[in-house]
């Protein structure tokens, strides 16, 4: 049997997809975003997407800065709005592969409404949300994904708001592909991102990243390996569903492909409708 994993690893050099003149990057030591970026570029490589046809649109925050490192057509937009820019770009240029990189604050707080409607519309965009549970760029304020009780600069006595399940939100809003993975499982993450990119329609992937410097330090969560392992142990692959470990891990988040449906892609539906109108005119 062909060992595709090894083959892919051998042919993939992340440096081929990075702007070398932008190095060194600005991410903190231990930040999970670099792992996520590597997995994403690996998935792009495996999908055989030419760099000239790749458009990466990002918002504001630590996640937003990643687009500048990618050797592609890159757009660093406004806070919370990358999905809106990506919607215009993809509709205007269906020939491009449009990937959005966003964070939990960018995507779920200021940009929450855009996420809901991007899911509903089902335009062929891949939305990669790097969830590190914090506003890192601005110095560590509470985010919609910060767990209850956690300390941040704006919850000095501990967070009293609940967080929520972004994947459940995306699925409920109609995203035709929804998945979640942790940075500790880089191969699984790469595979999931590849499936999301290949999916025709709106795909939403939540990447559970870690903010060691700001969030981890303030909450005494240990260094990056400890944070990643803690996240990993709180996960349960979706493939297991409600099997063995349920009684032991009642609060485990599911990872892997969570939703995949086959419904009309918005851009194609629009173009078909427009073509019908033009034919009727003539």
């Amino acid at each position, binding site marked *: 049997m062909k060992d595709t994993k090894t083959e892919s690893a051998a042919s993939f050099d992340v440096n081929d997809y990075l702007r070398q003149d932008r190095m060194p990057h600005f991410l903190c030591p231990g930040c999970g975003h670099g792992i996520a970026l590597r997995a994403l570029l690996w998935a792009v490589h495996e999908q055989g997407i030419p760099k000239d046809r790749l*458009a990466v649109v990002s918002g504001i925050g630590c996640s937003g800065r990643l687009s*500048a490192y990618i050797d592609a*057509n890159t*757009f660093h937009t406004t806070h919370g709005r990358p999905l*809106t820019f990506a919607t215009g770009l993809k509709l*205007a*240029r269906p020939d491009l592969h449009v990937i959005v990189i966003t964070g939990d604050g960018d995507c779920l707080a200021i940009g929450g409404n855009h996420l809901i*409607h991007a899911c509903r519309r089902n335009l062929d965009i891949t939305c990669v949300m790097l969830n590190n549970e914090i506003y890192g760029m601005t110095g560590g304020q509470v985010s919609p994904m910060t767990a209850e009780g956690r300390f941040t600069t704006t919850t000095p006595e501990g967070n009293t708001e609940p967080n929520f399940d972004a994947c459940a939100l995306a699925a409920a809003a109609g995203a035709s592909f929804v998945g979640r993975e942790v940075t500790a499982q880089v191969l699984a993450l790469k595979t999931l991102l590849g499936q999301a990119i290949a999916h025709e329609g709106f795909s939403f992937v939540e990447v559970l990243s870690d903010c060691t410097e700001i969030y981890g330090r303030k909450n005494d969560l240990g260094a990056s390996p400890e944070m990643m392992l803690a996240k990993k142990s709180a996960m349960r692959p979706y493939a297991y569903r409600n099997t063995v470990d349920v009684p032991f891990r009642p609060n485990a988040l599911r990872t892997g492909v969570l939703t995949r449906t086959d419904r009309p892609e918005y851009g194609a539906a*629009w173009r078909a409708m427009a073509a019908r*109108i033009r034919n009727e005119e003539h």
Partner: protein
Amino acid sequence: MTAPSLAAAPPALTGRRNLEGNEACALGAIRAGCRFFAGYPITPSSEVAETMARELPKVGGTFIQMEDEIASMGAVIGASMGGVTAMTATSGPGFSLKQENLGYACGAEIPCVIVNVMRGGPSTGMPTRPAQGDILQARWGTHGDHAVIVLAPASVGEAYSETIRAVELSETLRVPVVVLLDEVIGHLTETVDLGAVPETPGIARPFATGPREGFLPYAETADLVPPMPRPGDGYRSHCTGLTHGPDGFPTQNPAVAAAALTRTTDKLVLHRARIESWREQATEDADLLIVAIGISARAARQAVKDLRAEGLKVGLFRPVTLWPFPETPLREAVAAAGTRKVLVPEMNQGQLVLEVERVLAGRAEVAGLSRIDGETLTPDEIAGAAREALK
């Protein structure tokens, strides 16, 4: 992908038509090559979106109603980044919401046209009543120093031709252009000759065509308009709202930052002759000059006729390009006629009058005439104020 061109106008856009101002804006944009519209319903501008929804599919364009005003501005910029000419339309509250992304388009130099049909404000205000309260918001609505062009049509025909000019200026200069209508012009129905449009030779956007290696997306060219890289053409450049140098990447280098910002504002100064547009009526010997835009200028036109019939030397100076304000033409008109008094009637508490005062700087005595009750200024009101001023 072909560059937008007047020559490629769809056959439906010819002949004389009865149109309302909002429809004329939409058809003008399509005539000028606009092939993408994203919008959100808002009175009194919704007919622009409705016309686009009907007409754009016929010419291979794309219409989308987004989830909010912010999203529609984002989508317009995204489409334009993809190389497609794009427009949105809104009114006061929506215009406020669009300001952050509008600033992005200013900073990143992404061509786009924003139609703002002014209604009574602040806040929800008087949605169906006319006003001219966004004169300063159109200029300074987004934060930070920035360049923006604002055109102010005063008829349905001008709504058509000025939207064409808005697309042309936006595409060729890589700057957002606001088409500032008031509710009356937006909903006024007049006859427009859709064929009577001057061929504008340079409507196409300057796209990058040179070598990919070492390409600088924001290089300082002689005309200060850097050719825009189109995704897919091999440039693989970066675009950001952060202050960026010629390479397109964020910079905090003081010299690079200052030069980059200065270029985007110098650009409009350099091309001022092309951007500026104004109309004069009976200004040659005017003792009193009225300066007005939109429907207030329409009322002023009648007031000038009435006052001239009484033997009073009154003229009208109407900026069609509102921003950058045609300051030299106004100064010259005042100097040539030896004008003593200037009257600025406007449907707000006094916005345009501030600019006129600044421009004339004591060359003539400037007075404002305000109306903010949701009704238009009438010719009689303006004539009365003019008579009073000339006493």
